[in-house]
C-alpha cells in the first residue's frame, strides 16, 4: 500500500478542524466565565487512527505507521465530584446554622434587653410601685400606680409571648411553603427529573451534554441548602438523589417522590426550621421558660395577698385581676395605714422571678452567640471548599487567553502546512511532465 497523495491535505485539514473546535471551546469558556455553576470545558484531542505502511523492501525494510492527524474525541467538563459532595455537605450545615442564627436573632430582638423597653424595667417599676404604696397605703393615686405598673408588666409579657409565637409560626409557614405544592423543593425536584431524562438520552447518543450536567449540579447545590442530599450516579447517567431523611429518594431517574415527611434530622434549612419549632427546639424552650417566669411572678406575688393580683399561668394569659384601686391591699388588716404586705411584695425585687428572667435573657444571648459563631466558622469552611472547586472548574481568563494563543498558533501552523502541501501538489500537478507544453 502506498501513501495516498492527498493524505497530507486531509491531515492538515483535521488539524485545522480540531484547532477550530478547541478555539470554539475556549471561546465558550470565556463567554461563560461569569456564569453561575459553569464548569470549564476542554476539547480532548486524540490522534486519528494511523495508516499502516508496510515495508517497502521485502527483506530489510521495516513498516511504519503514519499518523493521519487529530480528532476531537470529546468535549469534557472539568469537575471534581468529591469536591462537589464535600461542598454540598458543608452547605447543608451552613444553611442550618444560618437559619438558626437568623431566627434566634429575631427572638432576641423581641426581648429588647438590655433597654428601658424590656420586661426587666417593667418588673423594676412594678416593685417600685408597691414601695410607693407602702409609704401611703390608702392613697388612691398610689393604688392606681400599682395597677398601672402591673398592667404594663403583664402587657410586656403578653407581647413578648405573642412575638415569639409569631416567629415560631413564621418558621412553620416557611417550612410549609418550601415543601408544599409548588414549593421550591417540588420545583427543583421536577427540574432534576427532567434533566435526568434529557441527560440520559444525550449520553446514549454519545454526546455528553455539558451545560445540562452543569445545570443539574447547580440544582443539587441549591437542594443541599435545604436538606442534606446524597447523589448517586447510575450507569445510565441519571442521578438518584436522597433528600434529608425522607423514606424514598426524592428523584429516581425521571420519577419524583414528593411530598414526603421530614424530621429534624433532615439537616439544612428545613431541618433547622423543624428543629427550632419542635419539642426540643430552642424557640420552644424559650417560650416555655418565659411561661415559667410569668407563673413564678404570679404565684410569688399572689402568695402574699388574700385577693389575687395576677391571673393567668402563662406569659400569654398573664393579666391583672384587680380592677378598682381600692382592691389593692397594702396590708392584711383593714386599717388604712397598714403596709406590711406592700413592703413584703416590694421586697420581692431580686427574687426568684427576676432571677429566672435574667437567666432567660442570658440563655437567649448565648444561643444567638453560638449560632452566629457556628455560622461564621461554617461559612469560612464553605468558602474554602468553594474556592477549591472554583480552582478546578472555574474559568481562569489568563489560562483561556493562553489557550487562545496556543490554538490560534496551532491553526495558523496547520494552515501553513496546508499551504505547503498545496504548493507541493501544485508543483506535482502543474509542473511535472509538462515537457514540450
Amino acid at each position, binding site marked *: 500500500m502506498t501513501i495516498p497523495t492527498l493524505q497530507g491535505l486531509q491531515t492538515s485539514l483535521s488539524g485545522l478542524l480540531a484547532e477550530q473546535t478547541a478555539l470554539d471551546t475556549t471561546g465558550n469558556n470565556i463567554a461563560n466565565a461569569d456564569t453561575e455553576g459553569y464548569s470549564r470545558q476542554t476539547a480532548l484531542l486524540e490522534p486519528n487512527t494511523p495508516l499502516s505502511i508496510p515495508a517497502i523492501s521485502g527483506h530489510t525494510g521495516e513498516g511504519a505507521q503514519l499518523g493521519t492527524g487529530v480528532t476531537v474525541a470529546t468535549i469534557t467538563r472539568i469537575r471534581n465530584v468529591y469536591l462537589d459532595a464535600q461542598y454540598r455537605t458543608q452547605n447543608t450545615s451552613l444553611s442550618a446554622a444560618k437559619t438558626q442564627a437568623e431566627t434566634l436573632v429575631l427572638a432576641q430582638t423581641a426581648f429588647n434587653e438590655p433597654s428601658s423597653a424590656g420586661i*426587666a424595667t417593667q418588673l423594676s417599676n412594678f416593685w*417600685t410601685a408597691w*414601695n410607693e404604696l407602702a409609704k401611703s397605703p390608702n392613697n388612691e393615686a398610689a393604688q392606681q400606680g400599682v395597677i398601672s405598673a402591673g398592667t404594663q408588666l403583664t402587657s410586656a409579657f403578653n407581647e413578648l409571648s405573642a412575638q415569639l409565637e409569631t416567629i415560631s409560626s413564621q418558621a412553620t409557614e416557611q417550612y410549609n411553603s418550601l415543601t408544599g405544592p409548588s414549593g421550591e423543593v417540588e420545583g427543583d425536584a421536577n427540574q432534576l427529573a427532567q434533566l435526568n431524562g434529557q441527560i440520559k438520552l444525550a449520553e446514549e447518543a454519545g454526546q455528553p451534554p455539558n451545560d445540562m450536567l452543569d445545570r443539574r449540579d447547580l440544582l443539587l447545590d441549591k437542594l443541599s441548602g435545604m436538606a442534606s442530599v446524597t447523589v448517586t450516579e447510575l450507569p445510565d447517567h441519571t442521578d438518584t438523589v436522597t433528600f434529608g431523611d425522607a423514606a424514598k429518594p426524592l428523584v429516581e431517574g425521571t420519577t419524583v417522590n414528593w411530598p414526603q415527611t421530614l424530621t429534624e434530622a433532615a439537616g439544612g434549612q428545613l431541618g433547622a426550621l423543624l428543629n427550632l419549632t419542635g419539642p426540643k427546639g430552642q424557640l420552644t424552650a424559650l417560650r416555655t421558660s418565659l411561661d415559667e417566669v410569668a407563673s413564678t411572678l404570679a404565684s410569688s406575688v399572689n402568695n402574699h395577698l388574700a385577693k389575687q393580683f395576677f391571673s393567668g399561668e402563662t406569659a400569654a394569659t398573664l393579666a391583672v385581676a384587680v380592677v378598682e384601686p381600692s382592691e389593692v391591699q397594702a396590708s392584711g388588716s383593714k386599717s388604712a395605714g397598714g403596709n406590711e404586705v406592700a413592703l413584703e411584695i416590694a421586697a420581692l425585687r431580686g427574687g426568684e422571678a427576676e432571677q429566672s428572667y435574667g437567666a432567660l435573657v442570658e440563655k437567649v444571648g448565648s444561643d444567638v452567640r453560638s449560632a452566629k459563631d457556628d455560622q461564621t466558622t461554617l461559612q469560612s469552611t464553605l468558602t474554602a471548599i468553594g474556592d477549591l472547586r472554583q480552582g478546578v472548574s472555574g474559568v481562569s481568563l489568563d489560562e483561556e487567553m493562553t489557550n487562545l494563543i496556543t490554538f490560534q498558533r496551532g491553526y495558523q501552523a496547520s494552515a501553513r502546512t496546508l499551504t505547503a502541501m498545496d504548493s507541493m501538489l501544485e508543483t506535482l500537478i502543474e509542473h511535472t511532465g509538462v515537457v514540450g507544453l
Partner: protein
Amino acid sequence: MVTSSTLSDLNSSLASLERTTDELSSGKTILEPSDNPYGASRVIDLQSQLEGLSNYESDAQDGISWENTASSAMSSMNEVAQRVRELVVESANGTNNQGDLNTIATEIEQLTESIKQDANTQYAGQYVFSGTETTTPPYEQGAEKDEFKGNTETVARAVGPGGTVTVSTNISSLLGNGEASKDGKLLDTLRTIVGHLRSGTAEGKEALGTTDLTNLDTNLEALSQLQAVAGSATDQLKAALTRNEDVQTSVTEALSNTEDTNVAAVSIQYANEQAAYEAALRAGASIVQESLLNFLQ
C-alpha cells in the same frame, strides 16, 4: 476567585467597623444579649438593684420627715405640759382665790385641747399618731371626747434589704383615754387637775401640789421617753441613708464597668479598623484590575 475573597474580606472588615461605630455612638459595649450573655443578665440585675436602692433612699427620707413631724409635735406638747406644770405649781401655793383658780383651770383646759391638736398632726395626709389607722384622727376636740381612736399597730419604712425602721409613735401610751378611764396618763391627769382647780375644796387644793404634780411629772417622763424613741428612729434612718449612698456608689461603679464603653480604647480601635479598611479597599482596587488581558495584543 480573587474578587470573591477580596469582597468577603472587605465585608467582614466593614462589619467590625460598623460594630465599633455602634459602640462609640451608644457608649455601651453590650448592645444585645449575644454581645455578652452573662454581662447582659448582670446589667439587668444591677439596674434593678440601683432602682431598689433609690427606693430605699426615698423611703428613708420619707421616714425622716415623718419622724420630724412627730418630734416637733411632741416638742410642742412638751412646752404645753411644762406650762401646765408652772400653772399647777402656782395654783398650789395657796395665794390664789377661787376666781384665779378658775382662770387657771380654763387656761389648762385650752392647753389640753392644744395638746390634742398636736396629737392630731398629719404628715402627707396621714395622722402620724394613730398607729395604722392613719385616716382617723387619734383624738377628737372637746372635753368629753378623750378616747384614743387609733390603734397600737406600727408603721414601718423599708430602708434596706430586710431592714425596716418603725416610724410610728404610740401616743396613747402618753395621752391615754382621758378621765373616764382613770389610767393616770396625761389627759387623765390634766382633766383631774382641772377638776381639782374648779372644786374649790381643800383636798382638791392639797392634791394639786402632791398627787397631781407627781402624776404630771411621771407623764412628762413618759413624753421624753417617746421623744427619745423618735430621735433614735431618726438616727437609724439617717444611718441607713449614709449606708445606702455608699452601696449606690459601688453598684453604679459595677454597672459602669460591665456595660460602659472604654471610650479611649475603642476610639483607637476604631481608627485602626478604619485605616485597615481603607488599605484593603486600595489593595483590592489595584489587584483586581490587572489581568493578562492588559498585556496581550
